[in-house]
């Protein structure tokens, strides 16, 4: 046990900057991990990822946000409402926002359907951008939308495993968002994304007297002595994402 604790203490941690989340992670995400951020529409996946990226940039860690779900102007407009958002970090290149659909277009790919070669070209581009920018934090929003463009389950499986190996080689700490239907305790659409992930953050909700209370649960984090309690999650323009233990009588 002592040895295990000392191994954990030696590991480099990527501090999310979301206070209660870092406490649950026993300090932060082990650097280089890939974490699946799972939730239904409106559960706060994009906000959590953006706050993580911006907090990193404020600590001097460059980051990149690849979006395939919404155009950049919409993404930035939504984020402008949060106090943690700092436009200067985008302008200075500490936070890079990239629309994968534009990259696909520039590569001459069909933006709605990817072949094996297309997927492979896209992976190479992701890796090249991450290397060139020397990013420490990377987001793909969302892995579900990316896989949706692949035609068969075999292609999806193959793409996800290749993505897993690429991310492992990049040495940056990655968050992949995964869209799931509401009120279903499943981690991914294709049932395979969780296997390439070192960690899983599950964003859900519970109903209380007809109101929906957002919840957060740290389901898995390899290499971290982490908490598994279910938390209530608050999103506010002033403080972004905050967690508090969920009352058990819920």
């Amino acid at each position, binding site marked *: 046990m002592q040895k295990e604790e000392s191994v954990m203490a030696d590991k480099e941690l990527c501090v999310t900057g979301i206070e209660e989340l870092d406490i649950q992670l026993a300090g932060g995400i082990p650097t280089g991990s890939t974490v699946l951020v799972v939730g239904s529409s409106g559960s706060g996946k994009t906000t959590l990822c953006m706050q993580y990226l911006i907090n990193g940039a404020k600590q001097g860690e460059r980051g990149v946000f690849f979006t395939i779900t919404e155009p950049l102007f919409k993404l930035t407009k939504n984020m402008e409402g949060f106090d943690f958002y700092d436009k200067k970090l985008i302008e200075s290149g500490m936070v890079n926002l990239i629309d994968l659909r534009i990259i696909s277009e520039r590569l001459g790919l069909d933006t709605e359907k990817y072949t094996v070669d297309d997927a492979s070209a896209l992976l190479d581009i992701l890796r090249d951008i991450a290397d060139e920018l020397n990013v420490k934090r990377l987001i793909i929003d969302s892995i579900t939308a990316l896989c949706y463009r692949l035609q068969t389950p075999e292609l999806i499986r193959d793409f996800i495993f290749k993505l897993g190996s690429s991310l492992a080689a990049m040495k940056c700490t990655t968050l992949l968002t995964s869209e799931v239907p509401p009120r279903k305790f499943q981690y991914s659409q294709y049932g395979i994304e969780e296997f390439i992930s070192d960690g899983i953050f599950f964003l859900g909700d519970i109903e209380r007297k007809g109101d929906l*209370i957002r919840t957060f649960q740290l389901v898995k984090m390899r290499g971290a002595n982490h908490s598994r309690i279910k938390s*209530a999650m*608050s999103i506010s323009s002033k403080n972004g994402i905050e967690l508090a233990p969920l009352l058990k009588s819920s």
Partner: protein
Amino acid sequence: MANVLIDGLKERISNAIKMNQSIGVVLPGNNYSDLVQAIFERIHSEPEEAWVYVTVTKPYESLTRKFEYLSTDKNIKFIDCISRAAGISKEESNVIYIESPTMLEKLGLEIMNNFKEFDPNANKFLVLDSLSNLIIYNDPEIVTEFFYHLINKTRARDIHTISLAIEEEGMSQHINRLIYLNDKILKVRDSFI
């Protein structure tokens, strides 16, 4: 006559909160306005203290309409749990609106966030107005759990709490149990003076 009553209440509360970390105030409904006035006058007279006032009883707007000085006093911040549901949410710097009184975890977070905005060396006080109204919107078990957490958190951070419970005929067992979690109980009676 009214002033004597309010001054008397103010003195009782001030003395009790000086000596105890948490006090529960049980009062009949018709004394509610006097008690609230006594608390606000105390807050207004001690500008170096830091107060967070959680209202589940009257909207912030209605309180500040009656006690105008509250909207400019710098030593009090409000958390209004009922106005949003009624479609009122006038943005002001000293109030935070919670969407619904069922969002107890959010309420707990905002209480602590509000105290962070005050001078850390100031004496800190929290008013929960009221436990009986929280129970209207929530199951009693969850309010009990919330209150246990809140009392522990505030004790750990040296925040004094005043929790109100409006006495009704056959006051619920839960309120009785909750109010006795406080260090001191003040029972306000119609015949107080």
